[in-house]
């Protein structure tokens, strides 16, 4: 990677090198976009739809995407399914094992925000972007396989904005902390119940149930 970076940087600095740079970028981005090999990080329900997307009926191999279980050979991590606190270190490690350049697709509500498990759960991570810079989000519980194919095509458009020159690289859309200190600070903010952070506990209102909706136990039920 370092060599490619250096070539990119020197091309950018050379007068007139931009012409070569853009042509090289066009080729590189085309090839990267055409072969987005997916790391199936299938943890729960969405993994079924992920499998469906790679099999006969949907076949995203048409786009050059196919699943390889080894993180070293993959370009895009498809986070499919609920992520728990126990699973988080494993995913983090697999993400770190993937070689640059790499992208992430958050498939399904659970990896977008925690989904149906947002409230009341003591073990679910509320969104994969708490620890992985996600590029494309797919909503749905679970999303249809077509949505995954669409996400791959959207990701391809993002890839086409990339460049081999570090200066011209696309800004990663990430809310992730840049340093460990910042991460700890955020964690603390999350922990205190009084904070106004996004993960502050909602106020619990104990209201009486309206009488008209209460089941009549002696009735026709």
């Amino acid at each position, binding site marked *: 990677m370092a060599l490619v970076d250096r070539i990119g940087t020197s091309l950018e600095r050379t007068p007139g090198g931009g012409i070569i740079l853009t042509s090289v970028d066009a080729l590189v981005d085309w*090839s990267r976009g055409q072969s987005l090999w997916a790391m199936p990080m299938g943890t729960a329900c969405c993994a079924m739809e992920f499998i469906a997307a790679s099999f006969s009926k949907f076949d995203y191999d048409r786009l*050059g995407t196919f699943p390889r279980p080894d993180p070293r050979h993959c370009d895009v991590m498809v986070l499919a399914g609920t992520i728990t606190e126990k699973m988080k270190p494993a995913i983090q490690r697999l993400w770190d094992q993937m*070689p640059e350049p790499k992208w992430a697709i958050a498939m399904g509500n659970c990896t977008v925000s925690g989904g149906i498990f947002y409230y009341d759960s003591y073990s679910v991570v509320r969104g994969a972007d708490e620890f992985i810079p996600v590029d494309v989000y797919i909503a749905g519980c679970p999303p249809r396989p077509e949505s995954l194919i669409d996400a791959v095509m959207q990701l391809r458009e993002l890839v086409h904005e990339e460049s081999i020159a570090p200066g011209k690289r696309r800004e990663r859309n990430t809310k992730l902390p840049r340093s460990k200190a910042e991460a700890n600070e955020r964690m603390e903010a999350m922990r205190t119940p009084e904070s106004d952070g996004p993960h502050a506990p909602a106020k619990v209102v104990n209201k009486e149930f309206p009488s008209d909706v209460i089941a009549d136990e002696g009735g026709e039920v």
Partner: protein
Amino acid sequence: MSSFAMGAFWGLAAGLLIAIAALIGVWMERKVAGRIHMRIGPLEAGPFGLLQTLADTVKLVLKEDITPAAADVRPFRLAPFVVFVPIASSLAVIPYAVGWAPFDISAGVLFFMAVPSLSVIGILAAGWASRNTFATIGGIRGAAQMVSYELPRTLSVLAACMLAGSISMTGVLDAWRPWWLIVLAPAFIVYFIASIAEVNRGPFDLPEAEAELVAGYFADYSGIRWAIFMMAEYGGVVAASLFGAVVFFGRGLGLGGVPGALLFVFFAFALTTAMMWVKWTFPRVRPDQLMTLAWKVLTPIALVELLVVGVIASWML
């Protein structure tokens, strides 16, 4: 000096050939697998997805080249080349035209049998140097498998050599007669099965068994180095197919000129496709079954075949 230049030229040519063979091989594999799986396979990159492998290659070359922190750096980095070079050089002895091979030596068959086996060192080194349990198991499996299947494979080819009375590739080709097809049929089957095992492909892809070992001995390789491993694998498939077409089908049923060349390509392609078909149809065997097959089934068959051919040869010639 000139011989060195010649060597460099043919080395380069073989490297280029194997690269092209791998490019087509990977594309073909994905298309063949797609057809077996009731799907289409690569479609978007170029016509019929023909440029798919090109895109993959460019991407892999520009990918980050990771050396794990715990790895034994030098063997780790060298291993892909140790696997690749013997297989690439084995292509040099194949007679592409009648009476002509790039590297036409008197012991061509021996060369083809012996040199690709050197890649076992690379596989073992890759598995060991990765410092990864999956890779280690994969490397050890790969070494055991390749060493074991060497024997039936060589014995089966030896039958053809006995009939020809030569171990030169062009010599075997010159001596080829259509009735060999019948006599050598068992030897061909042994050769085909042993070749699949020799190039570590399904159902004998134990060193890289996806379900158990994730990717086996190359589990920790990324980018260009992994691409070289893959190229070596597909190069091995192509080399085994070409060799099989020469020795057992007499390079296109012994026909000269264009029809023979076309038939030669056809046979080689058919063998490659058959290897892919087998891979995508059968379950994977277990390591002990693999060894049983090599030592208790294939080797005896090859020996009996050798005996039969020996009798026929002494009677015919």
